């Protein structure tokens, strides 16, 4: 794809965002209700239902998480709080230890953060509800004083996802996302692509785009690890991929299936391999070694600091992040016509042949800037957003 020079001139270099005391600017200015323990989840949902302007991120787990799970839960929950789209955080927790460690992990951002624990409310969920709603309302009013200001596009971190794909995904929507990846990286921004399982068959090609042999080896090892996780569970990924429906729809080999997914990463060099919810150290394109299931995958990007997500679908997929606006795109005309309140960007003209890939990419890039500047995605308008944290083993 040798299309750079010709269009880099017309790409906008800034968006209207919320400056933060430290770190990157937000594309939204959310109050986050962060539920830190499963015991308080119902309370957190009740509080959130009374405050439709706030966003909720919640975990059903708490004590008994061990090892990688213990670490990733806290890293991911604190990652949600540190996300630039979050302006203030109200933590609900059954135990003070968890809320205190979260407050500590977020304190460097300078954000308004408060925690309410069971011990503060006499272990009374209704009292917690009452206090939380009143406190959250105060925080929201305070947050609303902040105004958007011009922010450089290079401050964006964007996660790239595909889900419920069909043949149009691999030939149109995902290559389009790849063009946006290259434009964003060219503008000095940061892009993350996850779904390790979907690299299977393209891992050699991805590893060739890294700048160090260590990163190349880590990508190969990450794919092998997922493959052996599956074979330990009695599943041969190479035998079932592509599956019969894939083959009937035109996919020939696992390499082809993989290329249709990893094309979201464009042609930019790969700077590094992140673990789940790990923030990138620098700008440019990063891979994240993570579960491929959309809810877990998107939350990994968001906890790593992604303010925006681009998400292609073939047959339709309503899932979006609560914290990061999730721009849904499809090239399937049936899908676009049947679920218009889900698909934010129609790229079916790539298949109809009525527009060039370059012009469709420019149009989507303009929309990315608009969504970053405050235009609502369908997912935001209808309140679809969720967050969920990956698990790695059993609890005690």
């Amino acid at each position, binding site marked *: 794809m*040798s299309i750079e020079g010709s269009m880099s001139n017309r790409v906008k270099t800034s968006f209207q965002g919320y400056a933060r005391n430290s770190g990157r600017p937000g594309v939204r200015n959310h109050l986050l209700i962060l539920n830190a323990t499963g015991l308080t989840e119902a309370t957190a949902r009740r509080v959130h239902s009374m405050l439709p302007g706030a966003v909720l991120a919640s975990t059903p787990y708490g004590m008994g998480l061990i090892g990688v799970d213990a670490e990733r839960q806290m890293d991911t929950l604190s990652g949600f709080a540190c996300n630039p789209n979050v302006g203030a955080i109200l933590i609900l927790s059954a135990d003070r230890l968890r809320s205190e460690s979260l407050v500590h992990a977020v304190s460097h951002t300078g954000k308004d953060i408060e925690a309410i624990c069971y011990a503060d409310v006499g272990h009374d969920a209704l009292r917690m509800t009452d206090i939380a709603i009143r406190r959250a309302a105060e925080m929201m009013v305070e947050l609303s004083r902040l105004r958007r200001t011009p922010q450089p596009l290079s401050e964006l971190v964007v996660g790239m996802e595909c889900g419920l794909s069909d043949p149009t995904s691999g030939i149109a929507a995902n290559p389009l996302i790849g063009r946006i990846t290259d434009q964003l990286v060219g503008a000095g921004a940061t892009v993350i692509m996850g779904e390790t399982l979907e690299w299977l068959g393209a891992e050699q090609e991805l590893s060739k785009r890294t700048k160090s042999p260590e990163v190349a080896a880590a990508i190969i090892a990450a794919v092998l690890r997922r493959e052996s996780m599956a074979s330990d569970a009695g599943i041969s990924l190479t035998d079932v991929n592509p599956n019969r429906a894939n083959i009937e729809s*035109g996919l*020939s080999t696992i390499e082809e299936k993989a290329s249709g997914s990893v094309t979201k990463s464009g042609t930019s060099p790969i700077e590094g391999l992140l673990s789940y919810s790990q923030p990138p150290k620098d700008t440019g394109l990063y891979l994240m070694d993570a579960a491929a299931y959309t809810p877990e995958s998107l939350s990994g990007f968001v906890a790593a600091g992604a303010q925006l997500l681009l998400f292609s679908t073939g047959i339709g997929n309503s899932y979006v992040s609560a914290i990061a606006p999730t721009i849904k795109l499809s090239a399937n005309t049936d899908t676009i016509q049947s679920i218009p309140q889900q698909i934010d960007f129609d790229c079916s003209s790539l298949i109809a042949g009525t527009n060039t890939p370059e012009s469709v990419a420019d149009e989507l890039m303009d929309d990315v800037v608009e969504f970053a500047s405050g235009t609502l995605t369908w997912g935001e308008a209808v309140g679809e957003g969720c967050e969920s944290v990956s698990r790695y083993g059993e609890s005690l």
Partner: protein
Amino acid sequence: MSTSTDESAMSGKRALLLAAGDQVATVLESVSANDNVDVRDQGNTIRLIATESIQRFHKIALVDLLVGDSVVRDGYVIGVVTRVVHAGDWVHIHNLKSQRA
């Protein structure tokens, strides 16, 4: 297989080339043997003649390929050719195999 549509002598059926240098393109509508197939490659249109019927979203060879040749689609090697392929042939599991499986 494919239903025949009215054939305009001027324009062929369309196939999508994903990256410059690819050896295959994806047909965007079902194609019958001897149909003209047009592929846009960076401003130029290449015309092929399909040698057989090819279903929508399946691949057509843009060049002749020998046994053992790699096939590149969207810049990625997607497998190797297991029997001689001519430009205009359908490229699928009968003449392309994975190097990974």
